[in-house]
């Protein structure tokens, strides 16, 4: 497997956010903050979690590194390798599937020259198939960062990719 290295940087802002998250749980149950803390840490580190970064989280929450690995490998939203700057997550479940969601994911992959799960060589885009995102009445849809893009068409995807290239899309 290819090795990737990651720049680790706990800014003051991130540290303050982590402190706030930890304060939501009783002091003796600091571990409870693990999932939200991992989200905050991943968001601040180019959307993925390397082993040294996970170890750092373990240290902050005073738990064993294995307890962090267990969680990171269980939940689909934590990435263990670098992803594209813009990660397009297509819903592939029932209601989106019957509304041509699969075709649109294929369209996007062809356009970008990648397969589902892959990232473009310039590191700009990844395409991923995910399960129902709770937008079933507004499908087909995809998630990009914190936001949903619904009622997708080829034209909408073209415009979205273009906006990403021009830096016009907010992820958080």
């Amino acid at each position, binding site marked *: 497997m290819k090795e990737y290295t990651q720049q680790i940087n706990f800014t003051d802002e991130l540290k303050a956010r982590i402190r706030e998250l930890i304060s*939501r749980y*009783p002091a003796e*149950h600091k*571990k*409870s*903050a*693990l*999932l*939200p803390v*991992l*989200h905050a840490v991943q968001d601040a580190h180019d959307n993925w979690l390397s082993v040294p970064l996970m170890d750092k989280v373990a240290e902050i*929450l005073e*738990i064993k590194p294995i*307890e962090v690995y*267990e*969680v990171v490998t*269980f*939940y*689909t*939203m*934590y990435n263990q390798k670098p992803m594209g700057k813009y990660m397009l997550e297509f819903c*592939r*479940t*029932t*209601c989106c*599937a*019957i*509304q041509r969601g*699969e075709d649109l994911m294929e369209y996007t992959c062809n356009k970008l020259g990648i397969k589902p799960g892959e990232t473009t060589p310039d590191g700009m885009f990844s395409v991923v198939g*995910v*399960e*129902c*995102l*709770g*937008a*079933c*009445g*507004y*499908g087909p849809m995809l*998630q990009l*960062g*914190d*936001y949903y893009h619904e009622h997708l068409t080829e034209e909408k995807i073209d415009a979205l990719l273009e906006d990403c290239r021009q830096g016009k899309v907010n992820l*958080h």
Partner: protein
Amino acid sequence: MATKILFEKLDIPGIETYEVYRKNGGYTSVEKALKTMSPDEVTEQVKLSGIRGRGGAGFPMGMKWSFIDKASGKPRHLVVNADESEPGTYKDRFLMHHIPHLLIEGAIVASYALGANLSYIYIRGEYMWIYKILEKALAEAYDNGWLGKNILGSGFDLDLHVHCGAGAYVCGEETALLESLEGKRGNPRMKPPFPAVSGVWAEPTVVNNVESISSVSWIVNHGGEAYANVGIGKSTGTKLICASGHIKNPGVYEVEMGMPVEEFFYSDEYLGGMIDDRPLKAVIPGGASMQILPTQYIFKTANGDPRLMSYESWADGGKLTGSGLGSGGFMVFNDTVCIVRNTWNISRFFHHESCGQCTPCREGTGWMEKILYRIENGLGREEDINILYDIQSQIEGNTICPLGDAASWPVAAAIHHFREEFEYHVRFPEKVKNKDHFRNEPMDKVRHLINSMAVS
């Protein structure tokens, strides 16, 4: 005018903000409960209302609250289940997005009734922007004295926080959710002990769905009896139905329990009928875990009574000709939909989401996915259909959590009602190689092929 309980104030401009919500009677149920009612009196009203949990299982909410272990003296908790991942379901997101304070208000009153001083809203990680809406709304509730110490001078303290998951359907199952809230993998726990005795951090906990908790304020304001007067029989109140698929008006609707399905389906106020006037083929009425129903059992039960929007009516006929209201994820399919492909898609979903603790679920869901894939792609064998039946029957009832059942019922129902489509796939592999086969040539056009062939 149909009674609106959850959507009563939805149309008020700005209702998502604290100021407008408060000006329009928001948080009065907290005032009423904390100033004039004991915790047990609140629980009593919820019991009287007859409301059943809206997360899918339909367990009476007041009864669940009365099970919470107060005697042990351990800290107690309310955990709101906002994991909403059942395919077809998006009502909780809708409520939290458009009227977030309704959930917070309900959670305060519920926590008061349970004697919980530390409660959580567990939201799925993908709903990150809703998570942020809730964080903001919670901060407003703290700033205005609805949360924190000695609320309204009543002596009741409550901290309410939002916690996020990270992508795992199984975390909607209440014990997996509690594991996840403790910072662990979402593996469901063996029951008993039930969460009401040993929940988060082994402390007594009640888990309720967003829609359930959002109904509490209305119940307290108007009284349990008024709530029970809405609806039909043991299905009291209203239910949010989220409709998707081939209908004119997809969206989230609040319907009074007992409304005829036919009215819901065809009236312009609701779904408005089929889009593009293509024929209706099937409906899954309550999320992907529920059984699919063919046309003849959607608007009428097996003995010819009108099918109603209620727990009892959808379940009428049991597993053979009935289904379930479930989470309210109402999915409509026209004649271009391939039931085999759809069932494969749902099996793939459950296989992907199985936590892997129980062998029947971990292995069985994978086998079903593989077999369905092969049938759908024209590589199936006649005996595959019965193998599928066999696998699903061996998962059912043999697992720690209900995900195993949820994965097996849709397969059984699909074969039971649409066996001819499975046979068509097996016998005419060339015809199904293209995944859009029914888009180009619906079942009605090819049925004669099966009938003309001797059944082995």
